[in-house]
């Protein structure tokens, strides 16, 4: 009897266990039921899925305090701990996960190229296969809206700003001399090889408080965290030779590459307008070492570059031309660490250092200058929740410059300065919902050379108007110190200021992207001087000002036509400024009113070929004709250029590459130089400033050697 009772008791006990019921409904914040959510008791097998009404029901043998979890894709996981017996008719509302794909993105002003599809307008591959870019990522960015094509310069000109107004960062640290050394009217290139980077954020305005010292734009380049495999790349091009190698071992990886460029053989075959005494020659090397710690990643990047050339510069005032000779040596080091500290804290820190030496000879004047730059940065970021993040940090910039000019006409002339800045910044990210987000930032900079402190606010808001579209706005104040050429003569000036107001609309659906951005930018305290070029004896003031306003449009379609991808960029720009030695407000020569680029990429499977074309058009650029009474009111004819490149895959790892710029041979004129004094008829005579050669042809062979034999250098072209 006792036994029977015991058994009965045990069965009763077990059956009691099996009979605790858990039930309830799960809804979205809108009140709509969520179907297919996973509801379960943590650490047990007991659970169920919600039905079309959002209801769930299951039984459990657990007793006492238990934790109930509700999870569903693109919603935050919900947990509650209570007595199981009370978990009946629960009403659970899930919060939207603001990190999920369909969330609003704070993107006003930014064009990103990366390997995630969130608001990305270009993939890394696009950057390097753009015809006419010839492996220069800066040239590829010039097909994006907001930029002006200034072909004789090669640098980035963003929204009415001149090239000095754009700063470039690698892994969050400043790059001080991002472009190869050159002289007037000889276009430059980016110093860095594009295949070291996994992603690019190109901000044409309204950028984060983390960055400063640029009136118009920042370009953020991020190096690859971990290379995919060991390989060797060999490139043989009609203008140079390149070699690259990547090694991986344990938690380390090392990539090195070297490139030798010499334009002499090329320029002996193809005639040039410029009288080169010694054509451009350069030797560059780069290395990236990475070490993966348990909670972070260390990257060390080093680049060295040596270049030299000698030419006779045409000049209307000197009929025989001006002899210009340059030797430049540049060393750049960048060490960064990013990692987690636990408790949702993240740290990003690093230092960058650059040494740049130029030996310049202009006719009889020898100018030797040396610049040292140092940047250190520490940034902490705390994630309080998916919806609220706070970051803050501090930066130190140290910059020294010395220059010695020697000439038979005057005795040795020395200039130097030390220009240090300290900055602090903070930024907060708030997601009110999946549809509505805000970013607020503040940056303070103290400059010890100019004895000046500036505080600049930054703000942006974004609202998702539908599943495929969003609207965002941004505002920011930006300060930039006078450039080196002026700072070496005058140290009592103030930083120049700009304010950006941006309205952005983005539509993304089904591999099509449309982006429209309108902006207004005001310039204040621009530098002015009273001589043709900045000189020792010039009078400098901060009395300049100006504005830029415009509309940038971007359309990308990877869907409509099979095997063809294309994008179309159009920029409308209205800008005037009174700066430098301008007598009045005028549109600078670099700022064309209309800029249009059409980039296409066509993969022909039967030919194993990728054919890319880039068609660029820009309306005429303003120039000043002293024979007319109004300053800077003439316009050159429109600029056009059709570039073509053809990559042919001989085999999986061997590529033959041909690229021709300006294939139609358009005769482009960028500007005019007028004589300083009128000729006998009382007119100022002029000469047209044109490209060194109308076309440029690159023929190359690229060979990748790796174990798996599937990788190739198509991404480097």
């Amino acid at each position, binding site marked *: 009897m*006792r*036994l029977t009772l*015991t*058994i009965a008791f*045990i069965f009763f006990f*077990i059956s009691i266990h099996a009979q605790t019921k858990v039930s309830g409904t799960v809804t979205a914040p809108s009140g709509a039921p969520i179907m*297919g959510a*996973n509801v*379960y008791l*943590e*650490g*047990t*097998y*007991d*659970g*169920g*899925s919600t039905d079309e009404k959002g209801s769930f029901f299951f039984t459990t043998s657990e007793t006492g305090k238990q934790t109930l*979890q509700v*999870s569903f*894709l*693109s919603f935050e996981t919900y947990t509650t701990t209570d007595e199981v017996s009370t978990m009946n008719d629960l009403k659970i509302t899930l919060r939207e996960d603001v990190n*999920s*794909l*369909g969330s609003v993105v704070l993107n006003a002003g930014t064009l990103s190229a990366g*390997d995630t*599809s969130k608001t*990305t307008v270009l*993939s*890394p*591959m696009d950057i390097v296969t753009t015809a006419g870019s010839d492996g220069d990522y800066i040239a590829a960015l010039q097909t994006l809206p907001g930029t002006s094509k200034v072909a004789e310069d090669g640098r980035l000109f963003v929204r009415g700003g001149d090239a000095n107004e754009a700063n470039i960062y690698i892994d969050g640290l400043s790059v001080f001399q991002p472009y190869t050394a050159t002289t007037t009217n000889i276009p430059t290139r980016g110093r860095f090889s594009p295949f070291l980077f*996994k992603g690019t954020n190109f901000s044409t305005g309204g950028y984060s408080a983390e960055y400063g010292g640029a009136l118009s734009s920042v370009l953020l380049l991020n190096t690859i965290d971990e290379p*995919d*495999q060991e390989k060797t790349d060999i490139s043989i091009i009609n203008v140079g030779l390149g070699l690259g190698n990547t090694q991986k071992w344990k938690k380390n990886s090392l990539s090195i590459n070297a490139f030798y460029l010499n334009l002499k053989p090329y320029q002996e075959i193809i005639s040039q307008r410029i009288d080169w005494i010694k054509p451009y020659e350069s030797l560059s090397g780069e290395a990236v070492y990475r070490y993966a710690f348990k909670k972070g990643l260390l990257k060390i990047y080093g680049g060295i570059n040596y270049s030299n050339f000698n030419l006779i510069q045409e000049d209307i005032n000197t009929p025989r031309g001006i002899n210009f000779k340059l030797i430049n040596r540049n060393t750049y080091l960048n060490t960064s660490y990013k990692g987690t500290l636990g408790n949702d804290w993240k740290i990003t820190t690093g230092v960058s250092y650059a040494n740049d030496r130029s030996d310049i000879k202009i006719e009889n004047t020898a100018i030797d200058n040396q610049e040292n730059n140092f940047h250190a940065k520490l940034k902490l970021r705390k994630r309080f929740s998916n919806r609220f993040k706070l970051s803050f940090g501090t930066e130190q910039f140290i910059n020294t410059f010395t220059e010695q000019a020697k000439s038979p006409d005057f005795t040795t002339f020395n200039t130097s300065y030390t220009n240090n800045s300290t900055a602090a910044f903070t930024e907060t990210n708030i997601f009110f919902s999946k549809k509505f987000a805000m970013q607020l930032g503040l940056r303070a900079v103290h400059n010890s050379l100019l004895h000046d402190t500036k505080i600049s606010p930054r703000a942006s808001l974004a609202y998702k108007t539908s599943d495929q579209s969003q609207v965002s706005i941004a505002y920011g104040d930006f300060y930039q110190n006078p450039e080196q050429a002026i700072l070496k003569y005058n140290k009592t000036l103030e930083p120049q200021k700009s304010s950006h107001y941006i309205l952005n609309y983005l539509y993304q659906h*089904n*591999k099509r992207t449309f982006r429209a951005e309108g902006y207004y930018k005001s310039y204040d305290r621009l530098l002015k001087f009273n001589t043709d070029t900045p000189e020792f004896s010039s009078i400098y003031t901060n009395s300049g000002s100006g504005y830029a306003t415009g509309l940038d449009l971007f359309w990308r379609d*990877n869907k409509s036509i099979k095997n063809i*991808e294309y994008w179309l960029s159009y920029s409308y720009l209205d800008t005037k400024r009174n700066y430098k030695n301008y007598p009045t407000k005028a549109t600078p020569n670099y700022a064309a009113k209309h800029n249009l680029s059409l980039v296409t990429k066509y993969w022909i*499977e*039967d030919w*194993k070929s990728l054919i890319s074309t880039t068609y660029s058009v820009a309306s005429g650029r303003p120039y000043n004709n002293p024979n007319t009474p109004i300053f800077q009111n003439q316009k050159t004819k429109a600029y056009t250029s059709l570039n073509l490149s053809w990559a042919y*895959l001989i*085999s*999986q790892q061997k590529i033959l590459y041909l690229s021709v710029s300006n294939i139609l041979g358009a005769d482009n004129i960028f500007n005019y130089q007028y004589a300083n004094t009128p000729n006998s008829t009382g007119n100022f005579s002029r000469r047209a400033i044109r490209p060194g050669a109308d076309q440029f042809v690159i023929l190359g062979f690229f060979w990748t050697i790796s*174990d*798996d034999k*599937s*990788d190739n250098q*198509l*991404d480097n072209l």
Partner: protein
Amino acid sequence: MKTIIILFTLLTITSINAQSSYEKGMNKAFETWKNKKPDEAIHIFERIAKAEKENWLPYYYAAQIHITTTFSIQDAENIESRLSKAQEYLNEAKAITKENAELLIMEALLNTAYVAYNPSIYGMKRSPKVEQLYQKAKQLEPQNPRATLYHAEWKMGAANFFGNDPKVFCPEVEKAILYFEKEANDTPFYPKWGKNEIKRVQKQCSK
């Protein structure tokens, strides 16, 4: 005494029941998956995974269902969120077991799914990863039939793309068939799928 024995027996039975609840749960999950309710099956696997903290298999299967589901849907947001969830599951599994060939193969399939879904964004970055994952899996288990079969299929795809002859990889498929025959593992629910895919892959060999 008798009471104690009976009690003991009963308790043992219940504890055996408890042990086999893992099996029951896994079987139920596979059943649900077979009945074309992939999301419910994922839920069950996820629950088991959260309860069995030392077992990587439920995470592995949850990831597999997400990945295979993406091959039959079009919606970009759905695909992206499934693939990122699958990656999360695989990361959890990798934290439990190191140097696991099956997980590497699944990760290779995950990356293949990314490439298949949007080659222009993911092709360049993830293709070398797929290759590397298969190679590492084969290093760990040279006779793994899934690694052999799917690696061969991947290489056939690349050969087709570059206009080379995919047939050179057919001997690999033959090898895979052999490895499938030899495959043996005592761990319950250990991956042994893939045999049914041989025919599909072999189609390229008979062309």
